[in-house]
């Protein structure tokens, strides 16, 4: 099922992250999770939001954006949880491009976002091992 992550290109000049976040806020969209990867020259903002269409519209004026399916896994906020998930993915040789995490929703839960090379394979093995993955619908009424 996967979740849609939006990625936005940010030039490495002062204020570009602010502009992007400001545009999203103006559109009345909640950012559920966020990560920025950057180099000397540019950054890539990766976000999971409450409203994908509104966000795309808001960011389109500022920069180029793309949609990427990512796997989001809910896990207990305790030691060893992430390792267990990585172990499962390793077993089926799914490569992880990058990963970031966020908390919220149910008390004591943590969420990890996995950008993998094979979303379908990753989700199916996680499901078989009893690990819940989230969908875009889950994100819409995700509670903080």
């Amino acid at each position, binding site marked *: 099922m996967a979740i849609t992550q939006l990625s936005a*290109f940010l*030039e490495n000049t002062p204020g570009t992250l602010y502009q992007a976040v400001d545009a999203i806020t103006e559109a009345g969209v909640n950012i559920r999770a966020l990560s920025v990867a950057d*180099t000397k*020259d*540019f950054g890539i903002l990766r976000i999971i939001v409450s409203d994908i269409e509104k966000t795309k519209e808001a960011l389109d004026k500022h920069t*180029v954006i*793309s949609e990427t399916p990512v796997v989001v896994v809910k896990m207990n906020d305790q030691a060893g949880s992430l390792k267990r998930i990585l172990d499962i993915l390793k077993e089926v040789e799914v490569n992880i*491009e990058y990963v970031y995490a966020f908390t919220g929703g149910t008390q004591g839960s943590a969420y990890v976002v996995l*950008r993998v090379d094979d979303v379908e394979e990753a989700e199916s093995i996680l499901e078989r091992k009893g690990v819940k993955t989230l969908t875009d619908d889950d994100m819409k009424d995700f509670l903080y």
Partner: protein
Amino acid sequence: MNHYYQPEIETASREDILKLQNEKIVKQVRHVYDNVPYYRNLMDQKGVTPEDIKGIDDIKKLPFLTKDDLRDSYPRGLLGTDMRKCVRIHSTSGTTGKRVVAYYTQKDVDLWEECCARAIVAAGGDESDICQVCYGYGLFTGGFGVHGGSHKVGCLTLPMSSGNTDRQVQFMMDMEATILCCTPSYAAYIGETLAEKGYTPEDNKLKAGIFGAEPWTEEMRQSIEKSLGIKAYDIYGLTELSGPGVAYECCEQTGMHINEDHFYAEVINPETGEVLPEGEKGELVFTSLDKEAFPLLRYRTRDICILSRKKCSCGRTHVKMTKPLGRSDDMMVIRGVNVFPSQIETVLLGAGYEPNYQIVVDRVNNTDTFDIYLEFSKDQFSDKISVMQKREQDLRTSMKSMLGISPKIHLVAPKTITRSEGKAVRIIDKRKLHG
């Protein structure tokens, strides 16, 4: 099926052209000697008299004229007729120093427009065509030259001038323009705008484009042809010699036929001034053969090119010149290496990027910095840093092998580099600011 505007001259035999040139050069030199004191002085200094010029081969004896001569003699020093006979002035932009002003009699204008008409017909134009001219109308020669040529051919002419791209696109679609005339960078921008408005290349009625006034590459031709669904033809000219139409491409698209009945071309070694044989690369030198108001003898264009007399499949017999391979004006020396912007464009377009880029050269701590800001397209964006970095790295590697030095590549978001409606500003050399 080949069409010509003036078949008798465009397909004349080599002997006939030579005969014509031999007659015309004698008269032209006499005209200049008698009416242009500036050039008479140059001839006197060199010890050449009009009597020494008996035919086109004697042209080697004449002194060269340079852009500096034109600037030094500004505004009227090279005028060859009574001002009362002049009907028009055009001028260069003067971005690199004093302006060059060129004068035209009615006959000069007619000959120039005929040259442009030949170019339009060579691009497939006839009286059934609708020719959209978005070169600037004004002191710049582009607009009026092509406009006049379009009239001579009998095309329905849309005198759009440059700018206001939305209106350009609307007229193009509503009037069903079939031939587009502008700078290649503006043609690329029009293509981009059409796509943005949701048009496919099949939606427009254009069949050909005649693009000039700035250097462009074969790769850019292919990109424009694809985005507009047309054949793109090069046209060459200089304000000093009249304007666009000094040379133009035919259906073969393998170089531009020089209108040899009006302009005699030589290629010289730019260091020594020695005339080079056909096929060798050097600086292009032009001599006008029948101009009245602004005749120029052995004018050094600073354009580097190659001439070829290989038989052309279009049937035209006039000598062909390659696209300028570089302009000594545009040549940058970066870290001791000669770099032509056209080489950079070749690499960028070859790697699948659009021609939206800017080259910035500066000097920091006595070392030249060399940066290229390049727009990537939506399809070229990836959420993975590694993919984007690889794009930059790959370009650095190809630049290094093409130029011998590697620039810093900065990918920037689509639409962030300012679009140009005329000549694109591709190079910002900040070293000049430091003096």
